[in-house]
């Protein structure tokens, strides 16, 4: 059973439909114990950094998510804002705190490109990881600039190179939306569920 963390600020239908198409049972959870111990957990994210950070506080989920991700054998998938929440903070919200698992600050895209980045962009894994090079759908105004030490990562380009995905053990964080990235995205989800490395 895949437990999808219900922060209350994300639109989850597309993700749920993607798991349905893969024949994987899912359910929504706000339960700290379940999040720490479930076989598969997704931290989704569409929306604003501050609102999502607040809802982690309101639901008292910070410790359980952090503890889970610090046990890298447990499959955890963080999507879009979910990936950004792994960081210390974001330029999007000066005072809101992320989970601080990655010692980085999320930055806005440069003014040379249209923001938000909306559309399909190439994702290139720079180390062996849970997917091959492919094209993914992005919808984001902010991004991770540098790869964290000890994590595998993929790069993409939009007004310069940015980090479009990071992974460690069975934890996978994607700035893009695998659930909206057609057949390639479906393969990313399958590989994450099954623990396949490409």
């Amino acid at each position, binding site marked *: 059973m895949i437990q999808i963390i219900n922060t209350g600020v994300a*639109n989850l239908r597309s993700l749920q*439909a993607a798991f349905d198409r893969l024949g994987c049972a899912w359910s929504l959870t706000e339960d700290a114990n379940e999040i720490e111990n479930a076989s598969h957990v997704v931290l989704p994210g569409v929306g604003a950094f501050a609102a999502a950070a607040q809802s982690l506080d309101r639901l008292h989920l910070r410790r359980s998510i952090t503890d889970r991700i610090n046990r890298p054998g447990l499959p955890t998938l963080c999507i879009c804002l979910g990936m950004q929440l792994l960081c210390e903070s974001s330029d999007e919200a000066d005072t809101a705190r992320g989970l601080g698992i990655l010692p980085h600050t999320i930055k806005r895209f440069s003014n040379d490109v249209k923001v*938000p980045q*909306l*559309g*399909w962009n190439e994702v290139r894994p720079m180390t062996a990881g849970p997917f091959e090079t492919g*094209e993914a759908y992005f919808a984001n105004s902010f991004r991770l600039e540098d790869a964290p030490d000890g994590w595998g990562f993929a790069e993409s380009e939009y007004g310069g190179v940015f980090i479009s995905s990071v992974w460690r053990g069975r934890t996978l964080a994607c700035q893009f939306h695998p659930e909206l990235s*057609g057949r390639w995205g479906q393969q990313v989800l399958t590989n994450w569920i099954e623990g396949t490395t490409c």
Partner: protein
Amino acid sequence: MLKSRIIPCLDVNHGRVVKGVKFQNLRDAGDPVELSYHYETQGADELVLLDVTATRQDRIAMLETVELVRRRLGIPLTVGGGISSMEDAGRLLNAGADKVSINSAAVRNPALIQAMSERFGSQCTVVAIDAKMTDGVFQVLTRSGTTAESLNAIQWSARAQALGAGEILLTSFDRDGTRSGYDLPMLDAVTSACSLPVIASGGADSVAHMVDAFEHGAHAVLAASIFHDGNMTVNEVKEELARSGIHVRI
């Protein structure tokens, strides 16, 4: 680098896809679920579903259509037509839309743009602008082209951006259904007034028209009849665009 997007548009009326010529003379063009999936497998980058009648009764049918389309569709889905409140937008998102497009309601109540982008995110908030050339200005039209507003499309696009819109869906009323190509002067004007991604819509009949739109700053192109008529598949269009030097996802 980011790819130029090709977006088939399905005009939906009572749960069926229809084709609009200047928003009139509708004819049946099929089942939205089948057509959506068909376009995804052909290589569409995104889909837009527009509720062209959007009566109260029709809106319930539209929610059902969105749910059914979402079950099959693995690419982004934008839904527009008749959305006048946060509740309407929320219901469509819950049914499976990824983005919601607002038009007449945004003109009547610009605060809706801000409310949507704060609650759902700007990447989810599409402002659709229908406009036509009147006395030398691009005049905004609402209510499916039936009401002329004292609003200039160029200023309106900049205002929509300031209020938090994430994307502009720009339809030329003069070109819609004419097969004479996108309205390039309108595209030039709007893409220089606002820095949001702009989807060009209205008038496409060939790949050359799409190349023109991309060269005039469009971030994506919307097309209906070129695909519904079956003259070209989405993939054929993209291969030809690639040969013309446009970066597309193949």
